[in-house]
């Protein structure tokens, strides 16, 4: 069987949709969206959020679905097919996924630990002290890594084991089946949290804080940028995942409706998780006699400090509700981590003369060893800096380059025609301008970010730490991208990608 035939294919449309929604729904939907929405105008934030979804998120999903589907290759192959000079961008995006995979598994590992802590309430009354002291045994600085923390390393190995086992079974029998199990479980777990949350005293105060619109915020450009940022980071776009997933679609597949379902499904989930999170925060605020804003938090602080505190104060079933909450993080995290890893494995096995399984073994070995740095006592600092560098700079730069190449240089109209011909419904010429416009919004986001960085470096870290971990990762990704581009590919990759020129437009060849 040739490599092309052996690439794998989704077994059903529902399997593909569940996998892409599973990839998009990650930890950020649960711990980032509610906080970003509440602190940027509450209910009024949903207006720029929806505008961003329809003018940036869904258009980019359509673009990436179409490119992956047409070229049937992971992202380095897609860009190399357009022009050999662009292949490095594909590898840059793949390396973003590589680095995100190394630290994403750690957070899922913490969630596994907390799942068991929840039953006994092991975190006690001082949840912050428990996280940073007893559990992570955090050092005083990112330059002091301390030793390997076994309490983190053991769940980390379990998470790697789950991801490896699923990916080893391939696209149809591994990824698709896993998502068909994880996604319904995730929805059920979230609904349990929501039902418990909204029936608690004080829940309405939390929901008021989350939904009450402050329309004056709509004139603030920062709120609009926050909405575009939230959509951009939430949909797995511009860092190799969506293109890899779309490359496994059968020839006769919808593009546009699938993109709408992925975008709408992801944002619908975010909204429900916002209701769950803020109803519980409202309860907690009332129990402590403070305002909801005082207990409102995001990220690691929300999941591993504030929520355990809220669970302590529940009137009953504390252990069970706590366990269900950490299950939502585990299911959301696993469905995303698998997609991130798949993007890297697909890129390696598509270009080089290795089988999918060999690519998986090599990736797991290298990435698994690299992830141990985050399991050290200083690992949380390193995770924070690497996450910031890959997301705030890596993905934004990759997004700008992708949208400039595909939106301004490549014949984007041909992609629209291609997608329209295959899909349940069509998009008009607005789609072309949405892609072009989003590239400009990303440039503004990057410029403001760099400006802010000069005024106040991220997180109060030393320049040395930011240089070593943040800039270091960016340099590795950039140099690595060019090295991997230069490396000789397999004969099949040469024949399929380098020797078959795309002629600057997509042409329809429906069998």
């Amino acid at each position: 069987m040739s490599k092309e035939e052996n690439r794998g294919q989704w077994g059903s449309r529902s399997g593909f949709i569940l996998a892409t929604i599973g990839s998009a729904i990650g930890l950020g939907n649960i711990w980032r969206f509610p906080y970003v929405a509440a602190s940027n105008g509450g209910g009024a934030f949903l207006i720029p959020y929806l505008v961003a979804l329809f003018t940036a998120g869904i258009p980019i999903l359509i673009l990436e679905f179409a490119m992956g589907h047409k070229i049937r290759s992971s992202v380095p192959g897609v860009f190399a097919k357009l022009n050999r000079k662009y292949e490095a961008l594909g590898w840059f995006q793949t390396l973003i996924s590589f680095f995100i995979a190394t630290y994403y598994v750690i957070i899922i590992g913490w969630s596994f630990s907390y799942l068991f802590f929840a039953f006994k309430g092991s975190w006690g009354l001082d949840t912050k002290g428990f996280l940073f002291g007893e559990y992570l045994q955090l050092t005083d600085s990112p330059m002091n890594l301390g030793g390997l923390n076994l309490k983190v390393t053991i769940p980390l190995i379990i998470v790697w084991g789950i991801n490896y086992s699923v990916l080893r079974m391939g696209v149809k029998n591994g990824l698709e089946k896993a998502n068909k199990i994880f996604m319904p479980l995730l929805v059920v777990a979230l609904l349990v949290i929501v039902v418990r949350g909204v029936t608690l005293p004080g829940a309405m105060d939390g929901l008021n804080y989350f939904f009450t619109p402050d329309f004056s915020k709509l004139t603030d450009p920062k709120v609009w940028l926050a909405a575009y940022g939230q959509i951009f980071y939430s949909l797995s776009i511009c860092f190799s995942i969506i293109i890899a997933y779309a490359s496994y679609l059968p020839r006769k597949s919808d593009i546009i409706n699938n993109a709408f379902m992925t975008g709408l499904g992801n944002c619908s989930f975010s909204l429900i998780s916002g209701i769950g999170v803020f109803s519980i925060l409202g309860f907690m605020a009332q129990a402590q006699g403070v305002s909801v804003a005082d207990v409102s938090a995001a990220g690691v602080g929300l999941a591993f400090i504030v929520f355990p505190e809220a669970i302590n104060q529940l009137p009953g079933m504390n252990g069970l509700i706590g366990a269900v909450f950490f299950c939502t993080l585990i299911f959301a995290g696993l469905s995303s981590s698998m997609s991130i890893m798949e993007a890297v494995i697909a890129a390696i096995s598509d270009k080089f003369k290795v089988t999918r399984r060999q690519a998986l073994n090599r990736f797991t070995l290298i990435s698994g060893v690299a992830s141990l740095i985050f399991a050290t006592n200083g690992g949380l600092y390193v995770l924070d800096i690497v996450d910031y560098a890959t997301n705030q700079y890596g993905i934004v730069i990759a997004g700008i380059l992708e949208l400039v190449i595909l939106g301004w240089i490549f014949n984007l109209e041909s992609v629209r025609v291609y997608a329209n011909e295959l899909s349940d419904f069509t998009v008009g010429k607005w789609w072309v301008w949405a892609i072009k416009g989003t590239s400009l919004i990303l440039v503004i986001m990057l410029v403001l970010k760099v400006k802010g960085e000069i005024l106040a470096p991220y997180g109060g870290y030393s320049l040395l730490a930011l240089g070593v971990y943040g800039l270091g990762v960016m340099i590795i990704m950039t140099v690595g991208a060019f090295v991997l581009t230069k490396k000789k590919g397999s004969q099949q990759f040469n024949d399929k990608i380098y020797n078959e020129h795309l002629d600057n437009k997509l042409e329809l060849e429906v069998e």
Partner: protein
Amino acid sequence: MSTSAIVVAVCSMILLWGGFALCLRIAMKSDNK
């Protein structure tokens, strides 16, 4: 909950979940299985 919060919550739910359900319905009728 305030009236404006309820209106926002209901409208956003209808838009997002309703939009998703509509796309799903179209997909189920489609040949692109």
